[in-house]
């Protein structure tokens, strides 16, 4: 058996009123990739915060051994000194500083008290080469893609002489191709430099792909540690550990709900970038949604999926927009979001915290916001009616909160997502443009959201389902459009669509572009 690099013994951590971690044990061997999985709220992030010193020694009970030495971390600096580096899901890079400056932030290359810029950028270049990123270290962070930023974070960790790299959801906002690159980098870092990593992820296929061992947390306790060195652990096996039961059906079945009437038709839709107005982000897109139909749009990050939906939604994004939107046989001229909402369209954002919810406000106020007129007869808000309405939606979508007065910021990710859906279902739409409706929620909540979508389809709503998770698209959609570089490049019906077919379609397109 390999040498133990890290051992956490009977870690218990309590927050006021709740036990977040209850006697958790985890052992990480030198040179392995160790995955930590669990539903939202299982205790993954808390465990990593204890390990990295975000929750300092004394606020938890139990022991941490690193290199068989008992450790007492009082802050992040303490753990970093030993080579434990954590990369958070929301990247901690400063957009208006260069790659090089970010890489050595807090770890500056100094000579006689002054920053040595030559050394900074020279070393930055070496680390960039190490992670396979071909960028000038003087480029500003804001000018590179999210996937590349993730690589910069890893390079930054390497610059700190990392021995144990902790990645919290490193691929949550990346598409499959970019995600694969990150995972392959972890594999090669392990092989070539012996770097041990802890990987936290919701994407079970990735874990099955690269993890050596998998520790499953549930409700703040360790359930089991699975050995995946032979690559034999299946996703179903992991899910069973996480939810404590076998999930045979990952996607609820929906009877055929498609009606003949076309609910929404978009013809020759073109939109340009808001700032770089000569760049086309949506290029001559045409598609149809029938009533009761769930139509998927799959595309890589930056393929123009969100921009397409947003520009249709009352031109909330883009400039020089042209094209026709026809709803129920009538051409719509939508120039603002309120117009789009009253025309029966909704756009459910991919980023609930940034542009979906008002976190400091109550569930009730969030839900009623898009159509205040429903609860304000004659212009006066009827608070009792508002509360009653909000309660109805809380019950209908099974949002777990003691009261609709509860602040949304205090809910778990899955429940926040349900509030976001509740808000838009409340607005009585005929067409829902759902942008990544299951991002950052756990397996159980995902299933509930799929069920909500099925219910909506059954009611005859037309649904555009944008996602970067292929299995979800294949499992949920009646028809699938594939988008790349602002264009729709293919259309599949569910029975003909396969993961390989769709990926191949995109790869061929992308190859063509790179070659050109």
């Amino acid at each position, binding site marked *: 058996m390999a040498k133990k690099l890290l051992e956490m013994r009977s870690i218990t951590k309590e*927050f006021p*009123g*709740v036990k*977040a*971690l209850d006697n958790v044990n985890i052992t990480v061997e030198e040179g392995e990739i160790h995955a930590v999985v669990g539903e*939202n*709220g*299982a*205790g993954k*992030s*808390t465990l990593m*915060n204890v390990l990295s010193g*975000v929750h300092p020694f004394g606020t938890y009970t139990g022991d941490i051994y690193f290199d068989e030495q008992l450790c007492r971390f009082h802050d992040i600096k303490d753990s970093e000194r030993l080579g434990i580096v954590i990369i*958070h*899901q*929301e990247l*901690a890079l*400063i957009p208006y500083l260069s790659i090089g400056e970010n890489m050595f932030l807090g770890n500056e290359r100094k000579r006689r008290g002054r920053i040595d810029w030559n050394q900074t950028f020279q070393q930055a270049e070496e680390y960039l080469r190490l992670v396979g990123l071909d960028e000038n270290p003087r480029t500003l962070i804001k000018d590179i893609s999210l996937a590349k930023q993730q690589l910069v974070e890893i390079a930054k960790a390497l610059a700190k002489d990392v021995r144990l790299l902790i990645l919290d959801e490193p691929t949550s906002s990346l598409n499959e191709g970019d995600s694969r690159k990150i995972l392959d980098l972890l594999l090669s870092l392990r092989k070539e430099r012996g770097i041990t990593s802890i990987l936290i992820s919701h994407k079970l296929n990735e874990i099955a792909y690269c993890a050596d061992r998998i520790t499953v947390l549930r409700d*703040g306790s360790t359930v089991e540690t699975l050995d995946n060195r032979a690559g034999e652990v299946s996703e179903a096996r992991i899910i069973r550990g996480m939810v404590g039961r076998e999930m045979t059906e990952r996607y609820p079945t929906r009877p055929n709900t498609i009606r003949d009437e076309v609910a929404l038709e978009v013809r020759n839709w073109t939109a340009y970038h808001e700032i770089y107005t000569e760049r086309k982000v949506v290029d001559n897109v045409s598609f149809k949604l029938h009533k009761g139909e769930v139509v998927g749009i799959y595309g890589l990050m930056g393929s123009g999926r969100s921009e397409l939906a947003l520009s249709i*939604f009352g031109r*909330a994004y883009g400039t020089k927009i042209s094209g026709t939107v026809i709803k129920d046989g009538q051409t719509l001229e939508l120039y*603002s*979001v*309120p117009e*789009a*909402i009253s025309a029966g369209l909704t*756009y459910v*954002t991919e980023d609930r915290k*940034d*542009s*979906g*919810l*008002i*976190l*400091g*406000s109550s569930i009730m*106020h969030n839900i009623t*916001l*898009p*159509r*205040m*007129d429903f609860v*304000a007869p004659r*212009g*006066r*808000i009827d*608070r*009792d009616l508002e*509360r*009653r309405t909000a309660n109805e939606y809380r019950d209908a979508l099974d949002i777990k909160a003691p009261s609709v*007065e509860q*602040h949304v*910021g*205090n*809910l*778990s*990710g899955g429940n926040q997502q349900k509030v976001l859906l509740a*808000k838009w279902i409340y607005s009585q739409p005929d067409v829902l443009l759902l942008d990544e409706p299951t991002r950052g929620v756990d397996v159980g909540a995902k299933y509930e959201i799929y069920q909500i979508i099925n219910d909506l389809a059954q009611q005859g709503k037309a649904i555009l389902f944008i996602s970067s998770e292929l299995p979800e698209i294949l499992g949920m959609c009646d028809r699938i459009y594939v988008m790349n570089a602002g264009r729709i490049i293919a259309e599949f019906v569910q029975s003909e669509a396969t993961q390989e077919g769709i990926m191949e379609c995109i790869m061929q397109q992308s190859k063509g572009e790179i070659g050109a």
Partner: protein
Amino acid sequence: MSSLRTVLRNNLKQYMILFALLAIIVAFQLMTKGMLLRPMNVSNLIFQNAYVVILAVGMLMCILTGGNIDLSVGSVVALVGACAGTFIIAWGWNSHLSILLCLIIGIVIGAWQGFWIAYARIPAFIVTLSGMLVFRGLTLIVLRGLTLAPFPSAFLAYSTGYIPDLIPGANLFGLRNSTSLLIGILIAVIYCISQIRSWFSRRKKDYEVENPVLLALKLAISSAAIVWLFYTLGAYRGVPMVLITVGIILLAYSYFTSHTVMGRHLYALGGNEKAARLSGVKTRKLLFLAYVNMSFLAAVAGIVFAARLNSASPQAGQSFELDAIAACFIGGASAYGGIGTVGGTLIGAMTMGILNNGMSIMGISSNVQQVVKGLVLLGAVAFDVLSKQRIQLDFIPFLGRRAAKHQESAKLEG
């Protein structure tokens, strides 16, 4: 039915500032040997603080949009006073028409600043800092550096006058102005009836209603406070006209923020601008209107203040913006927007007013007074921020990220 405890817990913050205000009143009442609440001083307090309350209400609307403040209000107060002085004293125009014209000037100033802030997207801090200089300068130009005085009584009546005693010689309970007491009783009765009626109608519709004992207690305390205030005013010269102006403004804006769609949109804008925009809130228009409204109220305050000084002075309104901002923050408004109430702002303004007045009666030097007021502002906001830091930090970009992470883990695992 909600019990006393849950009601208290849910409104803890509102009650905290109210209790703090009561504590300050009691303390000064004792330290000034009863001078603070003497009829003449109560009347004075109203005159001294009317303009702060008016400005603070306007400032709250700006702060709600996302922590934006308006630094120009002191200068706008001065400019409007200068215009009123020029129209009425120098040119001899009709007082009523001049007041109307002054209010329009306020709206035009607001539209100027609102345009740059909402449509040109220049930070409010910079636009209003510019306004502070520009309008102060214009004041000096209009007045040529001189003070104009005195105003005719028609102009003063709106702000420094009292509601006359309709039944002179009645001397109810030995009051100089019995009408005042009757007005107070009338207001208390109307208040109680409306509350009780809404309670019954809600119960009929099967909505959740508060505990009747609690309601009775609330009504008794509020009515007693209202009747006491008007009784005290009656013991001096009656109800100041300006109290009517302030009262109407408070009621109107309180209704606006809590019961209108646009008021709710204001909170949404401050809570998360992007989310509000994607929910159909017209964010730019709202921001524009908040600043138009601010300058309009600054014009109202300018007229009230000019009447109180009975002159148009180029130095009028210095640092009023700071009093108004302080009142909002002491009253529980969030510096990041989206949180704050008109009631809280009133309490904040009263706290500052009573501190000023009480310390002056005690003969404490104005230098020390400034120190005390500064510390009270910091203390009030620090208490607020620290008591719910977890939610607040979330709204600060980057700095909040780690804290948000922190908080998220706490809550996710919870």
